[in-house]
């Protein structure tokens, strides 16, 4: 195939334009703006590290940060364990399995706002069906205010998020399971290994690179949580369910504090980078690659 020198650049031109305008310019700009005070519609001016100083001294920022880590700390194991269990089940060759696979993935493709609506209704205090179940089966007579109680609101958001994204990570695990050579299982069977031995000695170690991928990916998902918060609690009660990405939105869009919100966005990236770095440091301890 012969072409002029400029031709390849014409092919990638739309993508490079998008990359520069909507990805790289905003990344640079968000860092620059984090050193400015920018209370819209007033013009911005430099304040150096002022936004960061304000954050570190703000109890609200620390509460939101704590919530974000708590969210990740429960969401990630929830998704990993749930998705792995589902994938191990779906991997079995029994009749009707593709129906279940299709079903388990379904929440992932539905709109968060739409499902948040029904979850709000399920978790409703007086008329909610969950409190009704709790009353019948566990004799919890005082209805729990799931969304208004600061002990539970964040937990509810985590449960809904896990429910919604588990099906996606299940598919990733499933692809990993299908890549494990069958000969290993046959050898194990000949040697008389039990089901649990096969799981812990063959399946999980060989799946560990996939598990690592799922963990890293889920952490990023956890830190960028916005939709479920926006649709269900809006950070209420008193920021008890607000996480960083939601806090960025609130400061930028509701309070028009573009500089401060940019600083928050930078902290978000910093936290994700730190956690991912820690992940990579501990990787050798549990992730095994096939030679």
């Amino acid at each position, binding site marked *: 195939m012969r072409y002029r020198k400029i031709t390849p650049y014409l092919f*990638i031109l739309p*993508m490079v334009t*998008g990359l520069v305008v909507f990805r790289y310019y905003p990344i640079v700009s968000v860092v620059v703006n984090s050193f400015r005070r920018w209370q819209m519609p007033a013009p911005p001016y430099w304040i150096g590290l002022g936004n960061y100083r304000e954050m570190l001294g703000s109890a609200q920022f620390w509460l939101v940060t704590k919530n974000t880590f708590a969210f990740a700390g429960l969401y990630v194991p929830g998704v990993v364990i749930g998705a792995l269990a589902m994938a191990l089940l779906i991997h079995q060759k029994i009749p009707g399995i593709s129906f279940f696979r299709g079903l388990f993935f*379904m929440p992932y493709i539905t709109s968060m706002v739409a499902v948040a*609506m029904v979850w709000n209704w399920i978790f409703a205090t007086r008329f909610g*069906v969950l409190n009704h179940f709790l009353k019948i089966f566990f004799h919890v007579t005082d209805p729990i205010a799931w969304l208004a109680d600061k002990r539970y609101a964040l937990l509810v958001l985590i449960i809904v998020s896990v429910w919604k994204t588990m099906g996606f990570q299940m598919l990733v695990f499933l692809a990993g399971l299908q890549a494990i050579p069958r000969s290993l299982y046959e050898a194990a069977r000949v040697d008389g290994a039990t089901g649990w031995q096969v799981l812990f000695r063959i399946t999980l170690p060989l799946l560990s690179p996939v598990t690592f991928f799922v963990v890293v990916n889920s952490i990023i998902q956890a830190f960028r949580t916005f939709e479920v918060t926006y649709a269900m609690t809006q950070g209420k009660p008193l920021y008890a369910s607000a996480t960083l990405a939601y806090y960025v939105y609130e400061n930028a869009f509701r309070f028009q504090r573009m500089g401060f919100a940019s600083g928050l966005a930078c902290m978000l990236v910093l936290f994700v980078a730190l956690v991912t770095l820690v992940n990579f440091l501990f990787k050798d301890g549990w992730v095994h690659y096939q030679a």
Partner: protein
Amino acid sequence: MTARSKRLKIAVEWTLMYLLLSFFAFITIFPFLWMLMTTFKSSRAIFAIPPVWMPDKLFKPGMWDNYVTVFTKHNFIRYTFNSFFVSFMAALGQLITCSLAGFAFARMEFRGKNFLFGALLATSMVPIEVTIIPEFLLMIRLDWINTYLPLIVPSFLTGAYGTFMLREFFANIPRDLEDAAAIDGASVFRIYYSVFLPLAGSALVTLFVLAFINNWNALLRPVFYISESHLRTLPLGLMAFKGAYESQWHLLLSGSVISILPLLILYIAAQRFIIEGIATTGLK
């Protein structure tokens, strides 16, 4: 082990597995079921204590009342149209942009190729929640607020995942096809357009469907860019509806069903593409 005890063991295993599968299936399906059932209830029935399981309007005259109300009185026809339009345009744009770039990265040599490809992939590490503020300020300056443009153009032009996926696909197409077309005197664009694109049919469908779903469900950009009622997409319209009709659950959930149903139909129709697309590229 005798044949009979072996069969017994398999029966026990299957029963156990189906029990576990049913448990997960129940958790998955219950919210959807409860949503659907509530939409066939009257406003009186939803606030019954204890909750009634059987919707009081199901298979009775006026069964579809809630849907009719939501569609005709609350602008959901318009929201549905907006969602369709925006998702379709953005997904179509991704196909064009990603297939052009994917073709160049897979089939041509040029200076800065690896650097540019790396720069593209690196962006998938930075979520849109971080870059939304400068993007918002940019849209204000372009005067694109309250138009369809900010919902379409950014995802039209960016697509690290799609470019990566199509590059992989194009790279695996045998060189002979390319050479044969070149000998016949076809231009590069012609080779891309009439040889490579038709071959990539299933990959293009996968990418289109995934992009359509993402844009259909997108919330962050509409929240920032759209405040006028007639431009709202379904998720945004649903949020506004919730703000105005707090606790009218039979109507709110009818709105939810309306915004889920088109995607559900698409999902059932294109399930193979979606699941394969994620299973094969989610890993790399």
